[in-house]
């Protein structure tokens, strides 16, 4: 069975890729990822904040309070050479690259352009086969418009494109008003691939302490629905490689990702929950499934259930609540375009109760 695929111009032995996680902080664990059959590894992320913060923090605490008492000129020994933030990251990337034979993709996480982006170049020099640019910014400023925000993202991708020659994938959040348009702009700015979607630390509340604490839960298979839809919608319409990440927990999930149009399916949560060896089991299950269903290769199925390929393209465009409401429809189903225009009309005018379409 031919499980091979291509992603960002890289030839991969199968479409299962390890997404950015702490596994790659340990070289032996990175090797285990390869041994389990994963076809490429995305390194853990190097954060813009980390690059700036760690160096300032160390300097602060090595000198803090040293002016207060003559008998203590310092409180900690200054070792002199530190491998902080980016240095340690670059060293680790090089070490992982040396240790495995599968492609290694560096991961850079930030939002602003500036001096820190030269680390993209350092990742390339350290041997990264590609770069995954993880952009996420919470635009809390009331003055920032969506177009300003998108322009900033595009500028960042363009700047990094000029720095390096290895392929770039952009990992995005799903929270864009007009995702297809923006995705297309990213590709025009130099992105070779789009990774759908990022998962974030979300604040939760501790009711006893009345405190906010950000945390992240492992993904569930349900979470793949969102990237599945968007990849299926954009496959064939934007000339780029898609990667589906979030919610890949089984062979079925990975196969769905391929059918939507993804070149690779990325996973971490299942490996954390069930162990790295889970990847080998999923690959074997994929192989069996393909054989049982008489597929010749992965590439044969890629995009086979994208919007352009399915019998009912409108299924991808309906919002869930629409399905629920129309299921009461007793023959009143309307063409997709009519429903869409009704939504826009309703949003711009008044409540559903006042709308003759819903109340008639």
């Amino acid at each position, binding site marked *: 069975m031919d499980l091979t695929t291509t992603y960002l111009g890289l030839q991969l032995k199968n479409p299962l890729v390890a997404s950015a996680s702490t596994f790659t902080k340990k070289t032996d664990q990175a090797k285990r990822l390869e041994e389990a059959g994963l076809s490429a590894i995305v390194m853990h992320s190097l954060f813009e904040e980390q690059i700036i913060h760690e160096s300032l923090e*160390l300097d602060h*605490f090595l000198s803090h309070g040293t002016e207060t008492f003559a008998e*203590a000129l310092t409180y900690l020994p200054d070792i002199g050479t*530190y491998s902080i933030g980016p240095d340690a990251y670059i060293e680790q990337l090089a070490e992982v690259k040396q240790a495995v034979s599968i492609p290694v993709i560096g991961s850079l996480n930030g939002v602003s352009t500036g001096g820190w982006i030269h680390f993209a170049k350092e990742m390339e020099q350290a041997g990264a086969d590609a770069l995954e640019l993880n952009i996420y910014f919470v635009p809390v400023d009331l003055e920032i418009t969506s177009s300003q925000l998108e322009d900033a993202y595009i500028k960042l991708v363009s700047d990094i494109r000029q720095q390096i020659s290895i392929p770039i994938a952009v990992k995005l959040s799903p929270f864009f008003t007009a995702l297809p348009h923006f995705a297309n702009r990213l590709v025009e700015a130099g992105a070779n691939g789009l990774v759908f979607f990022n998962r974030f630390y979300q604040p939760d509340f501790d009711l006893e302490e009345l405190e906010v604490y950000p945390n992240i839960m492992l993904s569930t298979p349900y979470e793949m629905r969102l990237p599945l839809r968007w990849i299926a919608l954009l496959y064939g319409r934007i000339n780029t490689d898609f990667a589906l990440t979030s919610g890949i927990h089984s062979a079925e999930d990975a196969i769905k990702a391929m059918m939507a149009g993804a070149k690779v399916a990325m996973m971490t949560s299942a490996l954390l929950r069930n162990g790295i060896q889970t990847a080998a089991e999923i690959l074997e299950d994929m192989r069996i499934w393909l054989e049982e269903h008489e597929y010749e290769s992965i590439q044969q199925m890629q995009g086979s259930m994208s919007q352009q390929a399915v019998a009912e393209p409108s299924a991808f465009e309906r919002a869930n609540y629409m399905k629920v409401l129309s299921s009461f429809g007793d023959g009143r189903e309307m063409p997709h375009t009519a429903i869409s225009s009704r939504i826009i009309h309703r949003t711009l005018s008044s409540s559903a109760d006042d709308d003759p379409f819903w109340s008639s």
Partner: protein
Amino acid sequence: MYDPALLKDAPETFKSTGARFRELPGQVLTIQVAPEDCTGCALCVEACPAKDKSQVGRKAINMTPQPALRESEAANWEFFLSLPEVDRTSIAFNSIKNSQLLEPLFEFSGACAGCGETPYLKLMSQLFGDRSIIANATGCSSIYGGNLPTTPWTMNSDGRGPAWANSLFEDNAEFGLGMRLCLDKQVEYARELLPHFSSEVGDTLVDALLTAPQKSETDIAAQRERVVTLKERLQGLSGNTRAQDLLSLADVLVRKGVWIVGGDGWAYDIGFGGLDHVLASGHNVNVLVLDTEVYSNTGGQSSKATPRAAVAKFAARGKDMKRKDLGLIAISYGYIYVARIAMGSSDVQTLNAFLEAEAYNGPSLIIAYSHCIAHGFNLRKGLEQQKLAVQAGYWPLYRYNPDRIAEGKPAFILDSKGPSISLDKYAYNETRYRMLLQSDEARAEMLMRAAQEDVYQQWEVYRRLAQTTTIGTATDPTGLAV
């Protein structure tokens, strides 16, 4: 806490709220900051548990820029100082809430902002400050405790406060023992003299002075009144040498505590021989070790209290040995009260340890986790970091109370639970651990693994101790005893 009628003269911006103390109903309460002396460490704000239900970021006490409030709050502070202190005999001290009504006799020290040591000294001064004699080892506590010509040790309105003196690094325990022996001798002589003056001062007074239990604050207040009466009655005997001796010694008839205070550099290292000797002597002294795990005031040199995997001067590659378990050494004697405390994890356990140590008629040792500028983190989070140290099982809280042996109870009480987070979750919040990770990651990981193993081993030892009824009074394993 005071009578609301006193608020009639309060400045306009002075704040108060109804006090909720069952023992003292109808009172109001004020927490007042000294605006011109606050160092801005924010520890009080971090520790404050009271949050506004409509705006949880606002607490009962909040940090705010000082200039706009300086003048009005300075007036409030002056008024606050004019309010009467709570009568020490009207409340029990055995709750945190009540203990914090007591007047601190340690204030405005020269310590670093956010120092982890000073809260213990403040508590000690609140509980026993008006009848304490303190021997202070050289170290941070002798610097901020004696930043001459001023001193943070102060007196109450009766003129009573801790008597404090600082000796050398290497002899502080002996210095404190000397105080104890002198005090004991003075008490002995005073008690010897008293019966000779039964006819002049009255049999009843002499009997009461000699037999007063002096356990509770009320007992002590009563004894102080007896001493006042004794002194008045002795005034008329100016020509009598022995009466003059008794007059000069009368104050020692009120029970006093000797506190021997110092850091880990003193207790674990330089003064250890003397400390061991003094503890072993069985005399009634209280030892408070403010354990920052390094020589803090000389700039963070490694001591025997420095933990494995931490970087310190003379351990720049990270210390590769376990820290000494001073508490366990003291426990091995069987007759020394020992407590390991961390106020940020359990203020109640800290309070109980102080009360029990002082009440124990023998040597006592309190080892107090003290976060420090030499640990390299924002000390505003000091109490939180203490909590993590306990949660990681790195700093188990316990009390070993020999008095419980006679009651047939286990002398060793574990006051904290077993490790619930990994050690690195606590340690890597601090530069002293993290800098090794940033300079030699492989060694840092090796040491952290070993340090984690230390935690598990230590916990196992303590867990077993807590199941043991006594130390030193086990049954005869040979069956040969007659």
